[in-house]
């Protein structure tokens, strides 16, 4: 039973990271970049790193505000709750993909913000289930963190857009230098 829960947790986390990668790809394409393999890999990398880091922060804060659960629950209670929350990004990733490639919208950031908030709310609800009487902090703190992560995403995705073109320029320079 416990093994089953653990394997579900791993699958949920995997699905969540696929969603983060998709958000990264959609966002990378939407900043006026050409569609090539480098952009796909770059977007995927940004999405995955951002996803890993934001979920790490959520994990740390959830453990911090729930010291009692550290004693009563098995190790990794916060990670399991986050894994369940992460799977709820699927509808957002799906609609973001549809909006970008079928409707040609340039508003992937909105989908990411809403998706992270949904993860936060779902994670808070999962943690609340571990208490007899739910604590409001478990809803408020993840929501505040989600807002901060959304803002970080908006900033990050715009700031690092120049990186793929910089890499290409460097690559061209190096190959020219090698020929000389």
């Amino acid at each position, binding site marked *: 039973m416990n093994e089953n829960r653990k394997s579900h947790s791993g699958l949920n986390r995997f699905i969540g990271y696929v969603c983060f990668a998709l958000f990264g790809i959609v966002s990378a394409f939407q900043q006026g970049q050409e569609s090539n393999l480098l952009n796909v890999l770059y977007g995927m990398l940004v999405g995955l790193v951002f996803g890993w880091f934001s979920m790490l922060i959520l994990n740390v804060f959830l453990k911090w505000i729930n010291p009692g659960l550290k004693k009563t629950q098995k190790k990794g209670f916060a990670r399991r709750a986050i894994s369940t929350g992460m799977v*709820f990004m699927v509808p957002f990733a799906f609609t973001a993909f*549809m*909006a970008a490639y079928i*409707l040609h*919208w340039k508003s992937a950031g909105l989908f990411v913000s809403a998706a992270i908030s949904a993860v936060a709310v779902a994670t808070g609800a999962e943690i609340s289930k571990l208490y007899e009487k739910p604590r409001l902090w478990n809803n408020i703190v993840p929501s505040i963190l989600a807002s901060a992560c959304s803002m970080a995403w908006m900033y990050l995705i715009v700031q690092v857009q120049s990186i793929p073109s910089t890499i290409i320029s460097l690559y061209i320079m190096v190959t020219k230098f090698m020929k000389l």
Partner: protein
Amino acid sequence: MVANPATTTAKRPNPWWAALAMMINPGAVLQNAVARIPWPFSLSISALAFMLFFMQTALDLLRNGLKDSGFVVLLSVEGLLFGSLGIGLLAMIAWVITRLFKGDKPVGWAVSAFGMGYCSTLIFTVLGMFFSLVLHWNTSVAFGVTGVLWATGPMIASIKQMSRDNIALSVIVATVCSGLLLFGWVLLGNA
């Protein structure tokens, strides 16, 4: 022995507080309050939210000289119908699917839960109207789409309750509903 009505009858929740709490803690509201909130009230929230959202779409087009003022009225009425009939229909689709997988909630509960989820959309669109009318900003995407996306979280929570905590089913149904909602808006909102 006659039971005391004061102790047997549960206190009716304040629907406005329940609608606001739906944004922070949808699970608790769905568990404790939605069953006792009349579905017409819930649908009026989503109807109003979509009416303002569609109105802002039309105002953006009007401001850019692409449509006339008659279009604003037409699209607002479409939004009202989409937010009431459309969301009601969407709730029924989700209800039918979850019912096939041993869901146990009544259809009125589903409609009420879906409608209540659009409280965040209503707040976003009210703010958007302010920025649209006072500051003449284009607000349909920044406020309207954001508001509708924020309602997806409560919608997922509703479907999760309807499917008796079946996470896989609730994610699939929520994805279908989100897709229908997106294309519904594109079909009607850009008419």
